[in-house]
């Protein structure tokens, strides 16, 4: 009888823990940790289509995609947001997305439409590059580095913090920038040089930026791998909106990597039409215009107007690299293993 009592208490607890096993249709959107969106926008979509939107988040860009691939055929969600061009080869090879040629793609520039099969819809892009602390360099009377090669000079010893490419997508983007800049024969030598010049490696962007970057923490490194939009974020989040950003990004040709983020409809979903509506809606002007300040990336839709702080303080690279996503897909693991051995072991 004790058993029955325990079981009934258990059932009671369960019913408390799961209020209303939701009678309405639920659209499930899976993404990575950095995904964010205006709650008001989500409510508007819910009301317009009479559905409930539920989000699922799983650590980093790579980890989230891997979980989506693991659930191939029996997806945990209907839409996935956050495949980037460093991982798109893996996503396409695993074939976890349904094609959807959104009519809004006509407002997206061609260089972002990297998937001719329309399984991945471009949503946003941002340039991974080195940011520096303006005040720090002014105070030392030092010029910030002008190229990646400059980072090997003794005056920049111990100044740079980067992310581990195995656990962080800006880290992986920066690794690809070095492969692009120095060629497949020269990039490892560059990293060996960086290691001698006391480069600091941390696991994630947050740790690097908010834990070590002098302009954003009590840290000791005035150079950090971040995004071209980060200076705009510095102004946006500052309490007394300064005229100029305390940080700047290095945008010379051959110093960074353009990251493109895609979304797609997960194969096996019970709601493919609704999922397609969600993609179109995300690619439309209202949501696209909110992307800069919710995720600090540039919108893919050219018709979307940038907020003022973005127009003034966010920058793009002067020329992007020539690594194809096929080449990246073929070599990514080999490069990461070589990098780990050269820089960490």
């Amino acid at each position: 009888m004790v058993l029955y009592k325990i079981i009934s208490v258990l059932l009671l607890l369960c019913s408390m823990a799961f209020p209303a096993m939701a009678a309405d249709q639920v659209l499930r959107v899976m993404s990575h940790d950095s995904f964010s969106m205006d709650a008001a926008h989500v409510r508007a979509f819910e009301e317009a289509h009479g559905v409930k939107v539920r989000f699922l988040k799983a650590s980093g860009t790579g980890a989230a995609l891997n979980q989506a691939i693991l659930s191939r055929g029996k997806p945990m969600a209907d839409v996935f947001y956050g495949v980037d061009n460093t991982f798109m080869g893996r996503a396409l090879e695993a074939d976890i997305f349904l094609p959807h040629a959104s009519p809004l793609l006509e407002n997206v520039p061609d260089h972002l439409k990297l998937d001719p099969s329309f399984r991945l819809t471009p949503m946003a892009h941002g340039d991974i590059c080195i940011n520096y602390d303006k005040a720090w360099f002014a105070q030392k009377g030092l010029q910030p580095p002008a190229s990646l090669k400059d980072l090997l000079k003794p005056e920049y010893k111990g100044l740079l913090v980067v992310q581990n490419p195995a656990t962080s997508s800006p880290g992986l983007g920066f690794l690809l920038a070095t492969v692009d800049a120095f060629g497949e024969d020269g990039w490892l030598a560059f990293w060996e040089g960086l290691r001698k010049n006391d480069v600091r490696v941390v696991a994630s962007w947050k740790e690097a930026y908010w834990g070590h970057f002098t302009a954003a923490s009590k840290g000791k490194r005035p150079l950090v791998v971040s995004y071209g939009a980060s200076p705009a974020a510095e102004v946006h989040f500052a309490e007394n909106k300064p005229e100029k950003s305390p940080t700047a990004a290095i945008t010379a040709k051959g110093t960074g990597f353009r990251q493109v983020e895609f979304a797609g409809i997960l194969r096996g979903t019970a709601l493919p039409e609704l999922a397609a509506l969600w993609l179109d809606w995300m690619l439309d002007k209202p949501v696209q215009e909110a992307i800069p300040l919710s995720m600090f990336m540039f919108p893919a839709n050219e018709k979307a107007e940038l907020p003022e702080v973005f127009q003034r303080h966010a920058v793009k690279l002067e020329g992007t690299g020539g690594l194809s996503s096929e080449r990246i897909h073929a070599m990514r693991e080999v490069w990461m293993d070589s990098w780990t051995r050269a820089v960490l072991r």
Partner: protein
Amino acid sequence: MDTGGSAVRKAVFFKGLLFLIPALFLAYFYFYPLLRMAGLGFSGIWAGDPGLARFFGSRDFVSVLAFTFWQALLSTLLTLVFALPGAWVWARFRFPGRGIFALVVSLPFVLPAVVVAAAFLSLLGPSGILADLSSFLFGRPLYLEDSLILVLLAHGFFNYAVVFRIVGGFWARIPESVWEAARILGAGSFRSFLHVALPLLAPALLSASLLVFLFCFSSFGIILMLGGPAMSTLETEIYRRAMHLFQLPVATLLACVQLILNFAVIFVQGRLEKRFQTALAFSGKPENSLSHGKKRLPVLLALVSGTIMALPLSAMVLASLRVGDSWSLAAYTQLFRESGDGLFLISPAAAMGHSLIFALASMSVALLTGLCAAAFLSRSDLRGKNLMETFFMLPLATSAVPLGLGFILALHWPIDLRGTPLLIVMAHSLVGFPFVMRVLLPAFRSVPKNLMEAAMTLGASPARTWRLVLFPLVLPAVGAAAIFAFTISLGEFGASLFAVRPELATLPVSIYRYLSHPGALNYPKAMAMGVWLMVMTAGSFWLLSRLMGLMKTRSTQDEK
């Protein structure tokens, strides 16, 4: 009146149920996901994955394995050196604040690794208290980051309670007459320790050491957060390979190596524990042998030990009160005011509510399954019982990553549980289950078998025997197990690595989110939530001690 045959059938049915409940629970939520995951990994191995040769062919594998052993061994030794004096003082002497001392040193074990790591960094990190103090005193900041020393210290801090509870608990029950005999025979305190205490304590010591070794061997959060990206143990390598690099074949092989080693350690530890629990049979009441604090050394030892253990905890409290460059309670007042956006960042108060609900639900599941398992194992005459016990204990130290990925791969059948709160409850219960079983087994074993048989012969049904004979006897242990499972769920963090609903975040997950968000108030807020978690845990422990006290007075009254 039942016939004899139906009574036997009923007993068999009851025993079967006792086995089936935990067995089905483990089979579906533990072995099935793991096997599915292993299947995927091995099919990659079969297909000749090129990553395998790159990893196992290089020196990487050997160095990872060697380092994992090495740091676990060092951590275990450090924990022993650190915790034994505390265990001795607590076991043998009465001194003011003995209860608080036991509480302070036990708390860290159930704190989530995120909180322990943050506490250590706010004490010893680059912008921690030590750095501030040393730059004030010597004009030069002293600090630790990404270092083995930091990891070892945190492991010692974390596992102090294991040694303290197991060895201290055993020590307290060795009767005073043993020490008196040694003294009369002319043994000094050192010699009596070496020749009398040590041999007596050996099984408990070994058992505690093995457990600490197991926890350090599979430690995850502390290595990841305090060791830096270059530090690599089996557990963190499984995480990086499986979660980020998606090299499932490599991760699967590593997980197999780890599982086999865990199995061996748990098996040996279980046998050892059974041995010293039977050895305890001779013991008297623990409290009788306590000497009053006449000596200064024990009090001093307790003070030093307790202070060291309290340092990281107080560093956390200080950090929660420090906003920018001034002192303020803002972090605490904000905890209940802030609403978050309800979608991606929920309010701390809501997180607290989720934590409580999940903890209550998973406590119930862990208790039900653990109770059945312990009852079954203590009554069973089956051969291979020890092996079965080891199987039941396996979730104790299984890597969260293969299991979590296995959930995603497997648990959509027969109904899709992925992304539901039930899965979080089950994941928490899996971690709590072995602890519940560990606490209950000795209690069940100490119930004399003939007592149950007598009740049955007198015509009581199995359920009635349980309710009227067995249950009252093991009730204190059940209370202890419940609180253990509850606090373990409160501190559980690993589930957040996987696709989870951000609006259902628990307290440890929120702490992690706030820790990695910019803004002057977010760090103190994360620390304030850590303090809350600590208070909730300490509250549960206090409740536990009251409960045990109540049981004790009731049972002594019964004796009279």
